[in-house]
């Protein structure tokens, strides 16, 4: 078996005596038997598949809080309006320039008239959430973002507000 095993490189000499060949055969059989034992053991181990689009109860996976998924804008439930003050910090901080905020109103009543996030461009770094001075923007454990048309990846203020209804605070690791 060691025809092409060129020992020039390692400096050791290949030993061609009958004894060493017999040892090689025995060693080979033992090692191959061991390998087969490993696969046999694993044959009976539980499978790790998660049949993703098929959601049955035991397999339905939900990432924990703090997962960097789709975006949401949090609504201040007491005041009945978005927390966002359209300060555009997130827009400036985003490394990929995938956020665009159109502010409206003046002073204390400043609010976002439009809020676009291009999820297709986003790289889930969460910098925008961190720079937000009023904790208005959050990333949610929502990970199913696939669409047929890339234009559908641009989130607008309506979608973001709707998703944010489930959240009172920024989603964080606990």
């Amino acid at each position, binding site marked *: *078996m*060691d025809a*092409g*095993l*060129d*020992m020039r*490189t*390692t400096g050791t000499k290949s030993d061609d005596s009958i004894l060493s060949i017999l040892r*090689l055969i025995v*060693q*080979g059989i033992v*090692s*191959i038997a*061991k*390998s087969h*034992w*490993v*696969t046999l*053991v*694993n044959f009976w181990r539980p499978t*790790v598949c998660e049949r993703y689009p098929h959601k049955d109860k035991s397999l339905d996976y939900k*990432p*924990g809080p*703090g*997962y*960097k*998924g789709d975006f949401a804008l949090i609504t201040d439930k007491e005041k009945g309006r978005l927390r966002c003050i359209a300060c555009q910090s997130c827009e400036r*901080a985003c*490394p990929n320039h995938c956020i665009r905020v159109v502010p409206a109103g003046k002073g204390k009543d400043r609010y976002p008239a439009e809020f676009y996030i291009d999820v297709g461009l986003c*790289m*889930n*770094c*969460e*910098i925008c959430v961190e720079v937000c001075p009023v904790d208005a923007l959050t*990333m949610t454990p929502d990970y199913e973002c696939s669409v047929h048309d890339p234009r559908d990846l641009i989130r607008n203020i309506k979608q973001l507000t709707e998703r944010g209804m489930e959240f009172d605070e920024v989603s*964080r*690791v*606990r």
Partner: protein
Amino acid sequence: METRSDLRTEELLINMGPQHPSTHGVLRLVLTIDGERVVQAVPHIGYLHSSMEKIAEAKTYRQYMPFADRYDYLNAMGNELAYVRAVEKLCGIEVTPRCEYIRVIMAEMNRIASHLVYFGTLGLDTGSWSPFLYCFREREAIIQLFEDTSGQRLLYHYFRIGGLRNDLPSHFCDKLAEFLDYFPARINEYNDLLTNNIIFQRRMQGIGYLSPELCRRYSVTGPNIRGAGIPYDIRRVVGYSVYPELEFDIPTRPEGDAYARHLVRVEEMRQSVRILKQCLEKLPEGEINVKVPRRLKPVVGEVYERVESPRGELACYLISDGSEKPWRLHWRAPSFYNLQVLPELLKGAYVADTVAILGSIDIVLPDVDR
């Protein structure tokens, strides 16, 4: 290859890649082969070039953080560590002990995950399919912990300048301890399946010989140089972070062939388990973040910060001109240097060895091209 002068066989010029299942990405190797032997191999790189270094010049120090994840995607935590340490050194920021320990935990977990991918893909390269799936099963445990901690599964953006995104989740230490308990037994199992398998041994032994001399000439680092018998490990040589407080060995093998490199990586996984166990024991309580100014403006100057990535010496070279953005950033990416030695290793190898040798030096193509 010496043949008789009157017996001429045709030499074949053959393109391996950029679309080839075993080049670990879009690497193109132009092979001149004589029968099954490789006469000459020329790697062509750059198919994945993505201006990772140039991007830095247009981003602030904080904004560049997520990009640091992205070029060596198997070692995202390690890349972040290199970048974060470089910036902190530039700004003179000292992080808390707990933060240092968590960073080391993350880097070592990432090292295990990266070596598992290496182990599995080397199995694929040599024609064995099952190790790949098994390794990914074990890797999944680590990835799950990363996901619970950083919110992402591959490109984490978990480290921050002066700290971390958040503290560890409550179940982290128990889960990790559980993993560390069963993982060494699994390594033994996979050794039985692949490493000690006689076919695999015979395929890997004696191919792709890397001499210490060659390592020095091409500045090969990481498990590759340790497989050639030189105990060169940045964790020991520089002793950054909390590594001097931890006990671990630098595994080396004297043979210098592909099999030696493989054994070194397998042993490194065990050493990482050892480091992680100590880290869990010693993990101090306390804050994870220190106060860092919102607008980060380091002084004019430059730093060169080295860490040990699973592929070798990973360094971040930063030059600051005093503004919010780095004037220049350079990655000393280990894969790039390790790949350069490939033509030397492939001379006289079989076509089948080509993929095995390429697998054994363990490159990540985005890391090569950046």
